[in-house]
């Protein structure tokens, strides 16, 4: 008998309660169908409050922008508005949803590569532009309405990259530090642009990398002052982690077993890589990562105090951290079978509808209302597409109960990138609908999101 390597997912109390409420799950599936993405706006509100609490406690002037790209849900973007956050949009469609959710343009910031049409909209609406390139700055300068009274200019952040510190990972985004002077010059000369500040985004949770990037960014702030510009913001982007597990131990055990040889753990022909520093082994909350940055030291002084001394407002753009545990995905078991000498559970779901960018998800789903002892043997989860690769799990998962035809499997904590980053409508299976579940007086109430909102890209950017 081979050993079991379950990867139990951490569960928020609201998700826990929902999954324990068989009637609520049944109602959701009956009304909205299977598969189904369920989002929990209340969890997002809780995450937002936790992050702002840390910033307040360290007395840092701040703004938090929800990185909308993690999830197309209109309920979550509306919750961000209600929680008093700003929003960070990456496309015209996201901008539409932000405006529809009630965000005023000055609470909206646009990041990432932008099409000419998107740049035009940003400039005409007065959305803050987080500029990715000199080309974009030129476009913004041309599009910004000139002759406005001061204060109604288009606000610009320069997203910087190319940091000298070896701690800072390389990035394909942003304006190289070597071009920062040219960027400042473009902003200075453009009558309709105003420098709001500098920005960077690091794909790491390491506070030391952020400290180094912050330190190097200050040279650009200094150069801006020399040109008579008035930067007042430093935007450190997102990159705060999610917390998928309560306890890193099962993940470490699994990673060791995998490293020793995939053997029976992985479907033949596929690679499942679980390096030790993988995101699913993380058990530190995002608040802790933020706290470690604010208490890290520059010149023997905490970053929080240095930011106050530099007279800069700290902007952060969390996405994953804000929707951590704010969503789950439900799918029904079609049938079970043996194939290639292995146990398969076939679901009415496709791999790309619950998996971000084809990455293997390294936590196990839950059998809703599952009973009995956990099965000894693990199973592979298959999707419904006519592709050999449409395995929802290319690795063996160890479920907490035997799944039978008609049972519902719940994938926990899928709100960050797992619902829409890669979802396709292949073979005529539309991406699963979304529904917002709100716990009110001990009962869950559901509000459907319209597919038009979810897949609205009529601006084509």
């Amino acid at each position, binding site marked *: 008998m081979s050993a079991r390597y379950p990867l139990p997912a951490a569960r928020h109390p609201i998700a826990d309660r929902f999954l324990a409420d068989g009637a609520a799950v049944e109602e959701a599936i009956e009304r909205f169908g299977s598969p189904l993405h369920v989002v929990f706006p209340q969890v997002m509100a809780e995450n937002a409050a936790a992050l702002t609490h840390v910033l307040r*406690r*360290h007395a840092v002037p701040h703004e938090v922008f929800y990185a909308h790209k993690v999830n197309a849900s209109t309920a979550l973007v509306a919750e961000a508005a209600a929680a008093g956050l700003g929003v960070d949009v990456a496309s015209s469609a996201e901008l539409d949803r932000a405006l529809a959710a009630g965000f005023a343009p000055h609470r909206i910031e646009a990041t990432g590569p932008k099409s000419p049409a998107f740049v035009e909209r940003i400039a005409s609406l007065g959305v803050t532009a987080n500029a990715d390139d000199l080309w974009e700055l030129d476009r913004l300068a041309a599009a910004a309405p000139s002759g406005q009274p001061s204060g109604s200019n288009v606000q610009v952040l320069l997203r910087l990259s190319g940091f000298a510190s070896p*701690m800072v990972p390389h990035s394909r985004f942003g304006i190289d530090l070597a071009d920062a002077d040219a960027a400042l010059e473009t902003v200075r000369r453009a009558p309709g642009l105003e420098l709001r500040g500098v920005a960077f985004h690091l794909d790491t949770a*390491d*506070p*030391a*990398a952020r*400290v*180094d990037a912050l*330190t190097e960014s*200050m*040279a650009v*702030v*200094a*150069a*801006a*002052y*020399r040109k*008579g510009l*008035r930067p007042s913001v430093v935007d450190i982007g997102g990159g705060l982690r999610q917390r998928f597990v309560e306890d*890193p131990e099962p993940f*470490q055990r699994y990673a060791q077993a995998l490293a020793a040889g995939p053997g029976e753990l992985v479907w033949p022909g596929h690679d499942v890589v679980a390096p*030790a*520093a993988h995101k699913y*082994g*993380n058990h*530190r909350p995002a608040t*802790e990562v933020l*706290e470690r940055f*604010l*208490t*890290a*030291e*520059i*010149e*023997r*002084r905490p970053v929080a105090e*240095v930011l*106050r*001394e*530099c*007279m800069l407002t700290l902007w952060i753009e969390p996405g994953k951290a804000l929707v951590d545990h704010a969503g789950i995905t439900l799918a029904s078991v079609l049938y079970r079978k043996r194939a290639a000498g292995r146990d398969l559970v076939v679901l009415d779901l496709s791999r790309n509808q619950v998996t971000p960018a084809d990455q293997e998800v390294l936590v196990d789903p839950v059998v809703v209302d599952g009973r009995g002892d956990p099965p000894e043997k693990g199973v592979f989860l298959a999707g419904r597409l006519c592709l050999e690769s449409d395995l929802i799990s290319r690795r063996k998962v160890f479920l907490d109960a035997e799944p039978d035809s008609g049972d519902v499997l719940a994938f926990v904590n899928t709100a960050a990138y797992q619902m829409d980053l890669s979802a396709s409508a292949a073979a005529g299976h539309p991406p699963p609908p979304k529904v917002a579940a709100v716990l009110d007086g001990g009962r869950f109430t559901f509000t459907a999101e319209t597919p038009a909102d979810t897949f609205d890209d009529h601006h084509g950017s």
Partner: protein
Amino acid sequence: MRYDSVLDMIGDTPLLRLDPAAHGVPGAEIFLKLESANPFGSVKDRVAWGLLRDHIGAIADEDRVVVEASSGNTAKALQIITSMHGVRFRAFTNRVRVREVREMLSLLGAEVTEMPGLSECPDPTAPNDVFSVIGDLMEGEPGRYHHTSQYTNEDNLRAHYEQTGREIFRDAGPVDLLVGGLGTTGSTRGAATYLREQNPQTAVVGVVAAEGDFIPGIRSAAEMWEVGLFEPDFYDAIAAVDSADAISASLELATRHGVLAGPTTGAAYAAARERLLSGPGGPVTAVVIACDRMEPYLSYYRHRRPDLFGAAAPTTSDPAPSVTAEAMEAWIADGEHVVVVDVRTALAFQAGHLPGAINLRDDLLEQIMEAGTPFSEASRVVFVCPTGERSARFAARAATTGCRAYNLEGGVLAWRDSGRPLAGV
């Protein structure tokens, strides 16, 4: 008492009974285990000697270099012991955070490699911690180094099990409560294991720094799991103490009991008292491990409690003379010599400051001004900080020495927001 080697003086430290009238916890006998009485000044003397005692001869013969991840008392003790044996020692640390500790290590000739940003203890989630740097170093030159590995070496525990715990039991009898700060966790756990063998009811409280706070020598609750020796189930409670309470308690130990102990001891004493006062009461024997002395932390005390060093905010009866930006500009226009002193960090100064200002960050300026006011009486001196609060203190203090000192109203922030120019470096 005569000794023939300072190393023989390690251990067998005094157990001090605190006067119940002075500690004020009803029904409690509180003892301090004065590890500060070790010859190099801390509980780490036992650890360092425990880790090296059986190996130092071979290390010296093979001309190996001792390496350890430490920035504090362990590094100090290892440096002293290795230099006595003609052995080289290298310490790796993410950051030496206390000035006196840094100065002491350099005075003793330690080779300290500082690696800002790296975790100082084994961290499976960090791609590069101090341990992997040490690992790479050892792999690069096999046989060249001896890693004492205080965080994972069971000798660390054994030193406290065989000595510290035994000594406490010998002097105090069965112990109901043992409280100690958690750094490597060796001292508390080693001693507690022995004490629990004598009295299974011994409660053990490990003390950590409150989240986001800093107490030298101990970790925060969140950092604890990283330590290889840490077993959370071992403790009856993990108490988080903030630096303010740790400092107050250490001052209380000094003034009421005459024990000059550092902030970690203060934290442990505060946690012990808290637990005893909230407990069921009755006769109880508690032991607090006093791990080191107060003096090496003066800069820490000064940083956290500037009020204790004569740098209190000026009283309202003696406000700082202040000046508006307009008035200051008028002086300059009149040809007066005005020195603008910006007390922020170099980074903030570099990013943007009043044109012509000089930069003397507050903690350095404080030290300078202890020696006297460095400004000419012919100049007007205007102090600036972000908002004008911190600089007011310096203006007031300089003014009392006869300097023509002023505080810029509203600080750099008001200056910037009024549209006045800022210079960058």
